[in-house]
């Protein structure tokens, strides 16, 4: 006969074992599909590049990491900054930042508009916002091309109105990438913003007006602080995919205006420099993680005050 304590500890052990067994599939997927490849990537970034792509196993080198920021002159071996890479980093960060700000400026009023509609019509508006997701990203990007190219809708319209004589060269500029990213990522900003604003107690807005706050002050002192979790979530959801954008800069930016995603693709493809590609990927990931850390810090701070 087992004592009560033994039965209890046996039950506890069984419970712990069951818990591990039940979470095993999820853990397996995380390790095999997410963490494992990361280590493969990390290992590749420290290897010598193969002549036709791939890497030479067992031969280690810092060349991959070295080339991320620096380049060696092929004639006199002097070291200079890899201007091309740095400008691509800069363009990626700049365009991602501008995309985030633009989607915030466009998404905030949109989300506010939806959140202030009668309850039964809000769902329709949210549905409308998500419709673009139904179309393939590539098709949406080509559609954007039709809008902004020299013979496109925007230029035709502007010329017809008489604002311009010559078509504006938007295609293959940073502007084209920016327009494309804002268009594609806008719903990712609107949805979390709307989720926060829907929870906003509009009686607080009335209380603000009652206490002599004008419209701008109510926005700045009451609405923005209260929906800040949505602002931060939306910004992260837009900023991170923008940093790694590939299709949009490829189609709209042309060959010259590359972003990080294109540079990485280049190294794994035509560049045949997998270690550099791996190092660039990890650099991108670090940038993303810095952004995420910023998010977590802010979210935990504001999350403590309200849901």
């Amino acid at each position, binding site marked *: 006969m087992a004592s009560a304590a033994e039965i209890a500890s046996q039950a506890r052990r069984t419970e712990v074992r069951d818990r591990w067994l039940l979470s095993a599939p999820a853990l397996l997927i995380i390790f095999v599909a997410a963490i494992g490849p990361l280590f493969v990537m990390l290992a590749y970034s420290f290897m010598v590049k193969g002549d036709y792509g791939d890497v030479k196993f067992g031969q280690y080198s810092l060349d991959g990491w070295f080339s991320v920021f620096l380049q060696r002159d092929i004639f006199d071996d002097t070291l200079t900054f890899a201007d091309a890479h740095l400008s691509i980093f800069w363009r990626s960060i700049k365009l991602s930042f501008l995309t985030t700000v633009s989607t915030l400026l466009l998404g905030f009023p949109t989300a506010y508009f939806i959140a202030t509609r009668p309850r039964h019509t809000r769902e329709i508006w949210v549905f409308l916002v998500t419709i673009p997701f139904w179309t393939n990203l590539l098709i949406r990007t080509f559609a954007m091309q039709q809008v902004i190219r020299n013979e496109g809708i925007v230029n035709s319209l502007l010329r017809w109105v008489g604002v311009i004589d010559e078509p504006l060269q938007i295609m293959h500029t940073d502007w084209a990438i920016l327009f494309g990213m804002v268009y594609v990522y806008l719903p990712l900003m609107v949805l979390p913003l709307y989720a926060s604003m829907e929870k906003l*107690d509009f*009686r*607080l807005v*009335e*209380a*603000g*007006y*009652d*206490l*002599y*706050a*004008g419209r701008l*002050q109510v926005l700045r*002192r*009451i609405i923005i*602080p*209260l929906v800040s979790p949505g602002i931060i979530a939306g910004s992260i959801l837009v900023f991170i995919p923008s940093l790694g954008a590939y299709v949009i800069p490829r189609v709209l930016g042309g060959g010259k205006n590359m972003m990080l995603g294109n540079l990485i693709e280049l190294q794994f493809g035509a560049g045949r420099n997998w270690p550099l590609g791996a190092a660039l990927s990890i650099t991108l990931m670090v940038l993303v993680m810095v952004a995420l850390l910023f998010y977590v810090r802010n979210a935990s701070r*504001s999350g403590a*005050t*309200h849901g």
Partner: protein
Amino acid sequence: MPESAGASEKRVAIEARGIVKTFGQGANALRALDNVSIVIRENEFFTLLGPSGCGKTTLLRLIAGFEYPTEGAILLYGEDIAGLPPFKRPVNTVFQSYALFPHLTVAENVAFGLQMLGRSKAEIDARVSEVLALVRMQELAARRTDQISGGQAQRVALARALAPSPKVLLLDEPLSALDYKLRKEMQIELKRMQAETGITFVFVTHDQEEALTMSDRIAVMSKGRVLQIGSPWDIYDKPADRFVADFIGETNFLSAIVLGVADGVAKVRLTSGAEISATLAEGGVAEGEATVVVRPEHARAVKDGGQIAGVVENVVYFGTDTHIHVRLDDGEMFIVRQQNSRTQSCGFEVGDRAGVEIDADAAQVLKD
């Protein structure tokens, strides 16, 4: 007491003239306020009383500026403010839900209005601690608003609305979320604060007892109309119509015939044949069939005599007093409230025959 002459000499703080407010359009239009006119004097504790949906909160929101009247004017010290946005009106509101800002501390909540008015930091700090002392919340100034109880949140909401020293303070059922005991305490507190600050209070409630105990004057509202405005004494003892009489306290309704009027006092004949004198409601009928009201405490059950009589149907003991339900001979129910004494019971049992003696001047003829 009837309104003293001195009260009417006070300045008018708020005047609503012929306010109409409709929500929606066409067939769905809802008339929330129907030609409402009210005069609220300076330093007055004025209560808008009525059942939910009577329009009292709508009227308060019109004064605050959250809604704009469809017709009519709202004057604040003689100036029409009906078109001004709420942040340009020197009135503040204590919301039913308190609506405290969850991202700010107690002190920051109280300081908000003053900050928006652009006061100096020193002035704000001084005023905030002054107002927090008034509502006895100094110790919790640094707390977040989700760390305080309902009663404390109520005090903070009050302090926040009082801090900018509004000309008029609007209170939208501020005590309805509190439990009975706390509510009683806050009623006294509110009266004290009104006396200390000298601010005009416009108080919305559906609780007639609250209205009677706290108000200088009461406006009884129903279905978007103001039925009667007067002191608690007026409203209780001289209800103008059936709704007011029924809504405020318990009342006995008796059918009667007005025989004649002299000096505002009517001679009426009850169905029992007894003739009593009754005061006339302002603008009430002067002849023919009418309804007379008598408060339960203004009548006594007697063994013999009385103007009307019937059979005791129920005796309900309430501690301080006993309610004797008498089924009158004409079929109507009459309730008598008698003070209890320690030494003897009310003297009636179910089934006993009882007469009802109505006090002199206790009866009132209703308008309709």
